[in-house]
Structures are given as C-alpha cells and as structure tokens.
C-alpha cells in the first residue's frame, strides 16, 4: 500500500511536471527582440528627429567622390578585372554592378529623407528653429542624390514619398528637366531653412552655403547658366568662405573643416572610418591597392610654372624632365617618380626598379607609374584601412569656377570672371600661376575647363564634365598611357597600360543605362537611348 502511494505520487509528479513546463512558457511564440529598435518607439522626442537626420549623412558619397575619376580620362582603373574597368573601357552594359550600386545608394538616401519628412511632424517640439534646420538638411541631402542621378542616368523616376513594392513596380521615368526643377526648388527651400554656420559640435551639417553651392552645381549641370551664376554669386557674397592657404595641405587632417569646405563626408578614425589610403596609395605602402591611378592625359594637362601648356613650343617643357617647372598642383595631386612616400621610401615606378612599385612587378602596382596623392596622409600609414580624413564633396574653388564658367557660357565674361579664375590660379600661398587675361569666349572656355580639370582632379567632377562638354569621343578613346622614362639605351619610352583600350560610343555613353535589374522589376522604366 505504501509503495503504491509512493508510485502514485511519482506519477502525479511527472504529470504535473510535464504539463506545468508546457504551460509555463506562454510567451513562447511572441518573442520581442531587444537587439533592435522598434519603429513604434521612435518619433517621440526632438532628439529622435535629430537621430533620424544624422543617419541620412551616411549616404553621402565617400571615396567614390575620389574614385569616379578612375572611369574618366584622368585616371585608370588599375586592375583589368575590376568591374569599373569595364566602364572605363566602354564595354559595360546595363547589368554592371557599379551602375546598379550607384543607383541603389542614391535611392536608399532618398528613401531615408522621404521617411524623415513624413514622420518629423509627429515629434512634439516647440523648437521650430531646430525642426526647420533638420528639414532643410534632409531636403538638401535628397537634392544631392537627385543631382547625381540626373547627371549619371538622366530621366530617373522622381520619388518623393515612401513607396510600397507595388508602387515601385509602376514608376515611370521623369523627364530630366523636371528633376532639375525639383532639385532647384528643394535646394532653394533648404537654403532658406538652413543656418550659415554651425557650432563646433555640428560641423559637417548642411549649411545655407552648401545648399546654394550645390544649387550652382546643379544649374551648371543642367545648363541653366544664369541661375548657376546667381547661386554661385550668392555663395561668394555670403562672405564666410574662402580658399584655404595651401593646396598641398587642403587634403590633410590639419585642414579639416577649413573655410574652403562647403560640404564634406566627415570621418573619424576608429569610429567612422574610410579606407582611402589602402584604396589609392602605392603598393609599397603596406600593400595598398592603387585601385585607380592617374594617367599621362591628366599629367600633361597641368601647365608649366609660366602658365603655358606643355604643347606650347615656347613653354620650355623638357620631355626628359617632364615634371620639372610645372603647375605645383601636379606634385600635390599625383605621386611622381622620386617623391617621398608615407613609409619614408622613394617612389620608383619604373619597370626596371626592383621595388614593389615597379610597373609590372605585380598586378596591384600602378600600371601607369603614377599614384593619386590627394588624401594620402602619412598619419594613415600605420593603419591603412582606418582613415579618418574627411572627403570633400564641394569646396569654394569649385564655386568660383562654376561662377566663371556660367558667366563665360552666358557671354558675360567680365572682370569678375577673370578674378574668380585667377583667385584659383594664384590665391593660395603654394599655387602661384600667372593670372589669365584672355577675353574671347573660346579662349576663356578653354582656360576654365583646364582649370576645373586640374584644380578638381580626383574630386569626382570629371565624369559629369565630360558629359556636359561632350568631349567623350576625344578623351575616352584608345589606349591609356603612363610615365615616360629613358630605357637602357637612353631612348625615352612611354608606358602603356596593359589591355586597356577604351572605346567611347557617343550614341549612348553620355548616359549610363537604367540598371537591367531595375527594368526587370519595373517594365515601365524606359531604357536610355541605344542601350
């Protein structure tokens, strides 16, 4: 009897245990993650609005602003199997991942802004100045993306709200003029909402000047020269911007947030870093990648110290000493043979040099014998993938050149135009080229274009300039050349980069194709001509 009781107790115990455990976990299927932030908890305070805008800055261009020139005549995509090399060579199509990624990134940024603008008014805030400023930042950032999309693809869909999958599948192309109208409108509104300057803790946010500068750039791209000149003039008249004293140091840590910068992508070592050093420095610098390298075409564009083109017989240019007595911006922008590298060694790119930088020693070493110097700072040598250097997206020198170019195109070349150009040519302590005095539109056009090319080399403008000036056929055809050096017999030889013949088809290459993937998903999206 006793045993029976005991057994019954056991049975009962097991039953209770089994059933009890089964029911104790009533929330089993309603797991709520604590490793992410629910949308429902957000938009409660003013700070939420600020946090939302902060995230939008991550979509600004980073090193791409530097590397875009790698698919123009100014630089060369060093490795033939890099997808960018197919664009440079003209053999790309609508499936190119470079094109798709650029498209995707821009629309990601646009979605972020749309989402912000749709929700910001939910925030109970009496600080209207702050909310206005945040809206201004968001609008300017959205315009930044559309400016880029219009320049690269032309008539892209204009999306100004958070759209659903079904809406995404039915979007149609918006005529490019409408995109420019939108960009103009947004930047004008933003400029009205934004402050002229910020305190130290907010350096890097969109300012009134940045919005106006961007407006000037947009109008220049759109061929709306009067508006471009007006916007540039407004920036100049703000009186808060000027050229930084040294062109050489403009891309160094010491110059961050200087008076020349209107807009930049801000970075911070260890926290929010870029890899510009590893991407661009010569191979000998801790196996840095030389991903894009300058070309002879760019190097030859720099004038001599006397302000003459090297093709000018009176320039005194000596092919045996090609880099002597040149526009100082050449040696500030490009690593040339004999330069000291961040590691302390000397740059020796000739194929016969036995260093890691010798052309042909490895497929990573520069195939032209040049390397990009802008943003390559010795501070980053210790840890090449951890650079904190801010990447400049818009600076005062460009505003001056926009002003000059727009006025020249308008046929309004007056003293202010020459002053703007000459300020760029000799307004710093380390760039002192003779002032230009030309007066004809053709001569001035030639000057301002060359000035843009060298002043803004590796700053992402060339791709758009080729398209605006319709010079693709001239500059984007044929082989890519590099350094010139004497061979064993003393004869001068010029390096030609391996398997890099370019083909430019004027029928279609002035616009990128709408990405194939995007058209597969949205049949309403029309392809650009001849793609």
């Amino acid at each position, binding site marked *: 009897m006793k045993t029976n009781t005991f057994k019954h107790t056991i049975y009962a115990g097991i039953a209770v*245990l*089994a059933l009890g*455990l*089964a029911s104790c*976990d009533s929330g*089993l*299927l309603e*797991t709520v*993650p604590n*490793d992410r932030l*629910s*949308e429902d908890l957000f938009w409660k305070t003013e700070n*939420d609005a600020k*946090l939302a805008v*902060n*995230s939008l800055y*991550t979509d600004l261009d980073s090193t791409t602003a530097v590397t875009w020139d790698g698919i123009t005549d100014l630089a060369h995509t060093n490795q*033939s*199997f890099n*997808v960018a090399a197919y664009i440079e060579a003209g053999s790309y199509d609508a*499936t190119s991942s470079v094109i798709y990624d650029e498209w*995707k990134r821009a*629309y*990601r940024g646009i*979605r972020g802004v*749309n989402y*912000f603008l749709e929700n910001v008014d939910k925030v109970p805030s009496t600080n209207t100045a702050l909310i206005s400023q945040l809206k201004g930042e968001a609008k300017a950032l959205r315009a930044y993306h559309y400016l880029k999309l219009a320049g690269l693809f032309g008539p892209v869909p204009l999306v100004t709200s958070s*759209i*659903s999958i079904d*809406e*995404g599948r039915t*979007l149609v192309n918006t005529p490019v003029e409408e995109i420019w109208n939108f960009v103009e409108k947004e930047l004008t509104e933003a400029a009205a909402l934004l402050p002229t300057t*910020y305190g130290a803790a*907010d*350096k890097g946010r969109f300012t009134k000047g940045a919005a106006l500068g961007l407006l000037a750039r947009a109008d220049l791209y759109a061929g709306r020269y009067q508006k471009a000149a007006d916007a540039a003039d407004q920036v100049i008249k703000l009186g808060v911007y000027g050229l930084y004293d040294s062109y050489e140091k403009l891309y160094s840590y010491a110059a*961050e947030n200087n008076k020349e910068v209107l807009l930049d992508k*801000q*970075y*911070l*070592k*260890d*926290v*929010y870093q870029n890899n510009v050093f590893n991407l661009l420095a010569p191979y000998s610098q*801790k*196996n840095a990648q030389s991903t894009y390298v300058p070309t002879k075409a760019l190097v030859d564009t720099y004038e001599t110290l006397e302000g003459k083109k090297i093709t000018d017989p009176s320039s005194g240019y000596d092919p045996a000493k090609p880099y002597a007595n040149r526009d100082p911006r050449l040696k500030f922008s490009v690593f040339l043979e004999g330069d000291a590298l961040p590691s302390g060694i000397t740059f020796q790119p000739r*194929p016969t040099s*036995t260093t*890691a930088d010798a052309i*042909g020693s*490895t*497929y*990573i070493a520069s195939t032209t014998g040049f390397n990009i110097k802008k943003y390559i700072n010795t501070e980053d040598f*210790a840890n090449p993938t951890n650079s904190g250097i801010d990447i400049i997206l818009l600076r005062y020198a460009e505003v001056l050149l926009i002003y000059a170019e727009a006025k020249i195109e308008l046929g309004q070349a007056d003293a202010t135009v020459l002053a703007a150009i000459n300020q760029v040519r000799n307004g710093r302590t380390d760039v002192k080229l003779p002032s230009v005095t030309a007066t004809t539109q053709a001569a001035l056009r030639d000057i301002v274009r060359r000035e843009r090319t060298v002043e803004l080399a590796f700053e992402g403008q060339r791709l758009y300039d080729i398209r605006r000036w319709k010079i693709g056929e001239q500059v984007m055809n044929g082989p890519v050349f590099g350094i010139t050096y004497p061979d064993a017999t003393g004869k001068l030889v010029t390096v030609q980069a*391996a*398997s890099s*013949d370019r083909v430019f088809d004027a029928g279609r290459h002035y616009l990128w194709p709408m*990405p194939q993937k995007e058209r*597969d*998903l*949205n049949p309403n999206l029309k392809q650009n001509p001849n793609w």
Partner: protein
Amino acid sequence: MFQNLSRNSLLSRGRLIVALLLLGLSAFAQNIAVKGTVTSASDNGSLPGINIVVKNTLTGTSTDADGKFEINAPSNGTLVFSGIGYVTQEVAVNGRATIDIKLAADTKQLEEVVVVGYGTQKRNSMTNSVSQISGEAITKRPVSNIQQSMQGLMPGVTVLDQGGSPGKSNTNIRVRGITTFNINGSSTSGYDLGKNDALVIVDGIEQRLSDINPDDIESVSVLKDASSTAIYGSRATNGVILVTTKRAKGGKVQVDYNGYYAIQKSNNVPKMMGIEAYMREQVAAYTNAGLPVPARFTEESIQAYVNATDREKYPMPNTWFETMLRSAPQQNHTISVAGGTDVIRTRLSARFQDQQGVIAGYSNKIGEFRLNTDYTVSKRLRVSGDINYRYARALNPTVNNTGNNPQPLNNFFHGTLWAVPKYADGTYGLSTQGNNPLMFNEIGGQSRQVTDYLAGYVKAEFDIAEGLTFSTQIAGRGTFTNQKNYTNSYTNTDKNTNITKTVAINSLTEVRNTLREYTINNLLTYEKSFGSHGLKALVGYSQIGNTQTFLSAYRERFYNNDIGSIGQGANDGTKSNSGNDAEYGLRSYFGRVNYDYKEKYLFEANGRYDGSSKFTGPKQYSFFPSFSAGWRISKENFWQGLEKTVNDLKLRGSWGITGNQSVDLYSYYSALTSLGYSFGGTPVQGYRPTTLANTNLGWESTTQLDLGIDATFLNKRLTLTADYYRKLTDDILLNLDIPATIGLKAPPQNAGSVENKGWEFSLNYRGAASASGFRYTLGGNLSINENKVVDLKGTGPYITGSDIDPRYIIAKGLPINTLWGYQTDGLFQTQQEITEYKATYAANTKPGDVKYVDRNGDKKINADDMTAIGNSFPKYTFGLNGDFSYKGFDLSILFQGAAKVDARLAGALAEMGNQEGFTHEIYTNDYWTPDNTGARFPRPVKFDLRNVATSDRLVIDGSYLRLKNVQLAYNIPAEIVSKLRVSRIRVYTSATNLLTFSKLNKWNLDPEVPSGRAVYFPQTALYTFGLNLSF
C-alpha cells in the same frame, strides 16, 4: 530549463556509475564452471554472439565464433540465453557442467524494425519511404564525422564531402535534392543553400550530426517522403534524420573498446608546370600581350633558373603544395561499458579524438562522454535519462581565415610566385605581393575555438492501460563557444629582394557564442488489435524554446604577441565590442493513426499543427497533413503460388505537405537600424529603417508524392526497394529583389516554386553461407534527382558571379545554381576566320583566342549570349557495397560516385599563368602557338581575361566513381582470445578514397570539390589501423 542541470546532479550521476561498476565486479562470486555450445534449432549451425547471463545477476558472457561458451554460475542458478533474431530461453543449471542448447529463430524479431518519427515501425507494415543504416555500418569506416559515413549507403541521400579543416568539416547532406535557396546570400560557390539541411533528431531532440560520437549510434533513419516527415511539420521539408543512440540491453556487463589510428593524406595536390616550360610560357604570354618581357624571363635568366642548384637565389616559381602539405595523424578511441539488471540498465561511453591537419597549424581535439540510463520503476513505469558532454578545441592560423578566399590556402595558388618558403637562416621569402603562406601559418597568429557541448534529457513512460502509454520527455542542450583569434605583429624582409611585409599592430578578437535550447515532448500512444484489424494511434504535444547570444570584443597593440588576454590590449578608441541576442519558439500539436486489415491493407495518416515565433498574425500557425497506404500483395490468396519466387511484395504510396521555417528571425518586425556618423570629430548616433518589414510572411511548404515498391525474392535473400517521388516546394522564402527605387533592403517574401522529382533504387543480396563458412552480402543503390525552378513570381533570373569567378543562375526552368556562361566553339585558327566571324570578346582578337559562340547573332559577345553550361548538383548518385567473410576474416568494399555534375575552374587553375598565380602542369606544351594549332588551351595573354571568361571551356565534368573504402578485418580466434580474458578481438586496416575515376584527376582535384578556385582545405585519403576489443 537548461540551467537546472547543475553540477550537483552531474556529480551524483558520477557516483551512481561508480556504484554500478563495483556492483558488477562484486557479482563474480565463486561458482561452478559451465561450458556448452549454442546451435540454431533450424539448421544446427553454431551461433556466435549469443548472450548468456546468470539470471538476476550481472554475470554474463557471449558465445564465440564457434558458438561455444564458458561461464561461472551457481549450481542452482538459471542461465538466460538471448540473441538478436532468436527467442530468449532460460535454462536451469541444476549442477550440470555442460549445457548444449538450441535456440529457435524469432520470426517476429526477424522483421526489421525501423525508427520513425516519435516511434518505431516494422519494415513490413510501413507505407513510407525511410532508409535506415545501423551503427555498425557507420563505424565500419573510420571517419571524422557521421555525414561522411552515410555517403553512398542510402538512396536519396546525397552527401557532398567537400573537405574542411579539422573540426570544421564541410559536409552537406541533401535528402532528395534541393528545395530552396537564398538569393541574398551568394558566395563563389553559388547562391546559399544552407536552408536545405535536413532536420536531425537525436533521441527525440533536435541536434546536429556533428554533435554525436559515431560509436554511440545504434541506428540512423532518414525519413524521405512527406508521409514519414509530416509528423515533424514545419521543419521537415528537407528530410529528417533520426539518430538513436545505443542503450544497455541488460544482462552481463559488456565493455567495448573501438579505436583507430589513421594517416591522412591530401587528395588535392595540383602539380605546377616544370620551371622551364613555365618560364617559356610566360615569355609567350607577355609577347602575346604586346608587353615587354621582364628581365626574369630573358633567355639567359631562364637558363640560370633552370640550371640553378641554389634555390635560395633562384627559387622555383611555386612550391607551396610540396612545402605545406604533409601526412597527418588522426586517432579516435571510444570505450564503453554497458550492463544492468531488470531494474536499471546503463551504458557509459567516453571518446577521445585527435585530428591533425594535413597543413600544419590546423588541428582538432575532442573529448566526450555519454551516459544513457534506463530504470524500470515498476511494470508500468519506465524512466530514462541521458547526458552527453563534449569538449572540442580547434586550432587554425588566423590570417584571413574566413570568406571566399581563405588564406593561407588561397596563397597556395595566388599571389605567391617566386618566393623562397624559408631561407636557411629562418627568415621567409616573399612574393612581390608580400605573401608567403608558410610565414602566415607560422608567425601570423593563431585562432583557437573551444566549444563545450552539453545535452541531456529525462523521460518517463507510463502504461496507463493495456496498449495505452503516456510518455514525457524534457530535454536541454547548450553550445558554448569561445573563440580567440590572435593576429601577431611582425616584420619580415625577403633578404634577396628586400620586399618587406609588416603587420604593425597585433590584435585579438574574442568571440563568445552561446546557444541554449529546451524541448518538451509529450506523447500518448495506443496500440491494439481487434481481430483482423490493427490500430495504432499517437497524439503529441511538443515545444521548443531557443535562445542565442553573441558577444565579440576587439583590442589591439598588446605588449607582445604572447600577451593575449583581452584586458591587456590598448584601452583607447581602438577597442570595440559588439553583440546581439536572438530567441525563437516553436509550439506543436501532432498525431498519427495507423490502421491495418490482416496486415494486408495498410493505412497511415499524420498531422502536425505548428506555431512559430518567426511568423506573426494568422500566418503564425500552420497545419501539415499526410496520408499513405500500402498493399501487401504477397499476403493475398492469389499470391500463394508466387510466394516461393517473390516472398514479399508491397506497393505503397504517400502524399503530404511539410514545411520549412528557415527564415531570419524578426523578418516581420519593423525596426530601425543604428547608423552612426560623425560631426566635427564627434561621433553621433543615427537611426532609420533599412529593411522593409513583411508581416505577411508564412512557411515554405512542400507537397510530396511518393510511390514505392518493396519486394523480397529468393528466400528473402534479395530485397528490392524502389521509389518515385515528386516534390513541389511552394512559397519559398526569398529575399526577392524589389525595385531599388524603394530604397530599402528586400524582406523575405513567400515566392517561388521548386520541383524535385526522381527515382531511388536499392537492391541488397545476402548470400547463403557456404559449407566452408564463406558468407557475403552485396548492395547497390542509385538515386536520380531532377531539380527545376518552376516559378520565381516573375522575378529573376538571379545571376551571381563574374567573368573571373563561377557564374550561377537561378532561373525558371533550370536547376538551382546552374552554371552560367558562354558557349565556345574551339579556338580561332586564322585572322580570316576572326574577320568573318565578327563577334569577338575583346578588341584585337588573334588566332589562338577562344571563339565564343554568338548565340543571338548580334555580332557581339556579351551577357545576352550566355547560357547554361553545367550542373552544380549531381543528377545521379550511386553506391555499391560488398561484405565478405571467411573464417575470421571480413572484407568490406564500398564504391560510391556521382554523375551529371560539373565543376567550374577559376582563379589560377583557369587563368593559365596570365595573372600571377600557380600554373597547372596540364598546360605544358598544350597551349596555342602558330606551331601548335591543335592545342587544347588558347594562347596565353598576360594580364588579359579574353580567354578565361566564364565559359564551357572551364567547366569540367565532375562525374566520378571512387573506391570510397576498403576494409580488411581479422577476428582473432576464440582460443587465443579466451586466454587473454577477452571475449573478442578484431583488428582491421582500411583505406578511404583509395581509387578515383574522374576527369578531374588530371587537374589533381578531388571530384567532390565545389566549383571555384580550389582554395578550400584539402580533402584527404585515410589509411587506418584499428582495433575492437570486447570484454
């Protein structure tokens, strides 16, 4: 749940075992010696392996090969004779010194019992498609994991053994093809197929196959059709593998030792071109590209290199395979003790495994034990409890060990030419790219991963009434991983070339990963016969709760490379940490009914109602039904004349729906992502949505039809099983591309359908024992699987890869991960041919270049001309095995293979020296030159991709047949064995991957390789010596 398994309960378990062992020893009391022979009642043949136990004690023995036994027993005691397939008999000793007995065959037991979901079934009455292999078959082959030992043995089960470093083996099991894929997770071997892994249930609990000691396995069942898997509902689409571990059978204490020592050798040792041939090929490549030929390749220099004896000054271009690969030992030892009484039975096993890598710096050690215990508390109550603990430690070099191109293996092929592996003075040579895999291995730093694994359960079974049983099982398991990845700082300068490699900063990344899971299974079963009607029913409830946490920390700049504790690194902005948590739950209700009429007409129905926390709203729960039926034609009266020829014949069919819930957690949850930025040098936080949420997410469901036949012939010596199946998987959870204009990442959506259909055949023949004692069995199996994407909801095709890496496509009408690229039509032979053809891949095409087929005739070679060029998953897999025994010798042989499968070569293997990599000897004198126009390979062009774009030229037929295993064993004769006080000694020697027939042999690649650059840890061949002892 799991935390409750405290140290104390472990300790008390330990004491129990010791007590049991002592009890066993003390039972050897002084008694009389009894001898005898056990023979078969049917044919008088002697019966080896029959257990003899003194009743109610732990004293016991078993018969030797001749059926003889000897045991000490009380003169008034009783001996119990038992053996698998025979009726147990009790015989009173009555003071006799000799007892010869005959055992009758147990017809009931002869019927094979198969483990199925939540129970067992007799093979004869099954209506499902289930393959089963015994633990004996699994341990026959010395392997480092169970997956490998399942290869080639079961139809419908495709095992792809793709090598892997010790402790991180890369073996996939696919049951009846591939049903799903991830399009957002692609790698160099195509789109991610990780969601196709079968569900593995060990003794009722979900585990991983790598979590079990092969020596602890009693049987492995693979449930293939919907009717057998539907009882696992939402997790069953990819098949279910049921593992049952060994338990003590009671009776005498049985001690077994099973151990082996093996030598591993790499199967993949690609051979580099000879130095002279290579250097001349390089001259051709530079010349063809119109580039100046570098100084190294002048005629003078070539002569110097070819004739040099000083290989420090004139190094060979690539010696990494010879330098880095070695023979490496592997050993494995398991000892188990099993025994018990009517009341308590227990089996304890312990294992030690040590596997060294065929590349130095890689190794894995495992130590583990398992204790399985059963109590018979009363006639109606049985209680059991198991516990399994394992410690594993894997070591490997840290250098870029993850990703698609893991170093140092990547460096065997790429970026390491002309480097001296190590100079006599101990410094390392460096390639122009600063690489040296030997240096990375030896001084680059080491990663150490330690994993503690603990699993256990308690279970009670209570007979409520005749035929009605309730059982409850509560289980827990935990995996605790601790990883320390050290990167050393060092500087090495190549003393010949002055190339320097510097890793300036040493660092440590420490990772802790924990997984805890509990399972509760409650089952009520009922079994009863009513005259000619047999009924079996089961209802059950199950719930699973799973939590995982992940924590990682990073610091750098340690005082030196030997100071390696996370707190010792620099305490500044460079230190960082990260972590996340995840949890999910599954709640299920299920049931099954089996009905038979005269064991002739068989019916079965299953259903499971599953709710998962991965879904929300009305999609949270789903129902998975299945039905099956069988007809044993051989039981019909009209069969009577035929039953001598066809002893048993059964037709069966099944239909059912199963699910797959492999979707990332919280996919339905709308959340903001933290995206930080910095203003004016100050970090700021930012938030915004980055992924679209899909609250409408539901299960993937697979509808499967199976038609099968089971038959036995020739006095049940020949058995045949054949199956046809068609599996249609709908609502695949895909991160379907959405227009990028939406600006968010795609959420998973239920979209897309994949079909798998195929045939499976298995034939086994058990030969009769000849008079001389020669016995044999032969078996063969063949699987045919056809996979096709049926629907992608208007999206796709999805293409991953590039011209330099394998391209895969997922498109309607093609198998998943079909190789994609250009078709080719030989090589251009003349300039005129090129001019007329017009369509060239690159400008300046010359004779000797590849002629890509312009499929759309637009005179351009571009993506529009690509087509399917190969199959990445085999259509046919097959196995053939034979076991032969004569006297004390056993020989077993296993052939295994696959057909209609392709491998796409990439990287150095494909680019024939055009870049800076290894150049295979296969290219020697077989590349196009004006004097060698019949060459297999095109002309080399340095730094040019024109001839190595993804095309059918780079796709090699991966079909193979290989002698997977040969094993010869010898059982030491009983006379010698008994003198050693041991009941059995078996020694064996075996070899795996001994012979392979494949087109990839010429490339020195293992045929089971995935496509790509062959930079995986090499597959190995094993040469083993092993020993089994029983006491």
